[in-house]
């Protein structure tokens, strides 16, 4: 089996930047990823990526992808990594296409994904009333009654987007009061068709072909709300399940030092999948570059 210098897992800002550095160092490497762009592809407006006063997520991802591919980089797209294991001096990667790859170093840059509710009805009604992307699917709920599950900035953002679309919006929040930025919170509290239900959790989602109601528990009381749309905005979890041997924190984020090294020599990590303090596109990109340079140095020494 061919042994690569480096395999990069993921092609968001961290993975793509790592790939650019790897190409420029003429490393023998491969990128394996489910999608291109990661969470950046889901972002609407980006106003804090240096050099762009304003750019949309899709535009920035397009630039990232073209930069990566300008080096004829070998990208296995649409291929999910299911296992990363180090035995002897080599790291073996297994994928959902039943393939195996081997490398001397690996950079895990697999990012985060939307957290799911884990309640009855969620699987059945995904995309049949339940959505994890208010920006994408919001306009389809014109004139309908909807519920947003969550209480942070992304929930507030969804509420403000839906204010002009839905006829009525419930915010189901399981803490005593909403979190998020003060400016957004004020706007949401002023919105006429938004009803905030604090100390409330969702127990089940039901419907026939599509969602028609949710069951919630408010304090001690259980009740059913008729809704046709459900927007899940309860945060993100790291895509780190497929790598068992590295140390993670209690959120499942991979622990790294300031050289992007994990506790396993030769396995590096970068971006939102790690315990790096801030999750930003510009930070993920910088971390990807650092991780690649660390991997390069490691190869020179081993």
């Amino acid at each position, binding site marked *: 089996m061919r042994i690569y210098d480096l395999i990069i897992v993921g092609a968001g800002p961290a993975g793509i930047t790592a790939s650019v550095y790897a190409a420029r160092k003429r490393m023998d490497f491969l990128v394996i990823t489910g999608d291109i762009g990661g969470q950046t*592809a889901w*972002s609407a407006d980006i106003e804090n990526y240096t050099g762009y006063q304003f750019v949309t997520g*899709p535009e920035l991802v*397009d630039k990232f992808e073209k930069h990566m591919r300008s080096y004829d980089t070998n990208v296995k797209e649409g291929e999910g990594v299911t296992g990363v294991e180090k035995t002897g001096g080599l790291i073996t990667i297994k994928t959902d296409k039943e393939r195996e790859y081997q490398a001397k170093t690996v950079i895990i840059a697999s990012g985060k994904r939307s957290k799911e509710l884990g309640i009855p009805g969620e699987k059945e009604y995904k995309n049949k009333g339940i959505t994890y*992307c208010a920006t*994408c699917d919001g306009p389809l709920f*014109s004139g309908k009654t909807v519920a947003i599950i969550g209480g942070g900035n992304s929930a507030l953002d969804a509420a403000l987007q839906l204010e002009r*679309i839905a006829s009525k919006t419930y915010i189901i929040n399981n803490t005593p009061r909403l979190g998020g930025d003060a400016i957004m919170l004020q706007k949401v509290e002023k919105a006429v068709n938004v009803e905030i239900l604090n100390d409330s959790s969702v127990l089940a989602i039901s419907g026939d072909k599509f969602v028609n109601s949710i069951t919630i528990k408010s304090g001690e009381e259980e009740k059913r709300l008729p809704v046709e749309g459900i927007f899940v905005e309860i945060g993100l979890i790291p895509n780190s399940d497929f790598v068992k041997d590295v140390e993670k924190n209690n959120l499942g984020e991979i622990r790294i030092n300031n050289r992007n090294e994990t506790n396993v020599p030769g396995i590096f990590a970068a971006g939102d999948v790690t315990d790096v303090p801030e999750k930003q596109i510009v930070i993920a990109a910088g971390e990807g570059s650092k991780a690649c340079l660390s991997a390069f140095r490691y190869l020179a020494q081993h």
Partner: protein
Amino acid sequence: MAKNVKIYSTPTCPWCIRTKQFLKDNSIAFEDYDVGSDQIKADEMVAKSGQMGVPVLDIEGEIIVGFDKERIKAALGL
């Protein structure tokens, strides 16, 4: 012969933009329906795909939900 390609999308959806860009990059002509403002097309999309997520592509009657590059390529013969 050019295939009949329709896309049901919303103006704000990042994956819709990426899908349309992909079609343009491959010189594929398509009709674009904004299901956020066109309720008839929104209903048509839900009836065809049995779900409410965008984008939805209709390539000569083959319905593809989401930016599924491999399936889109296969359906277009790219």
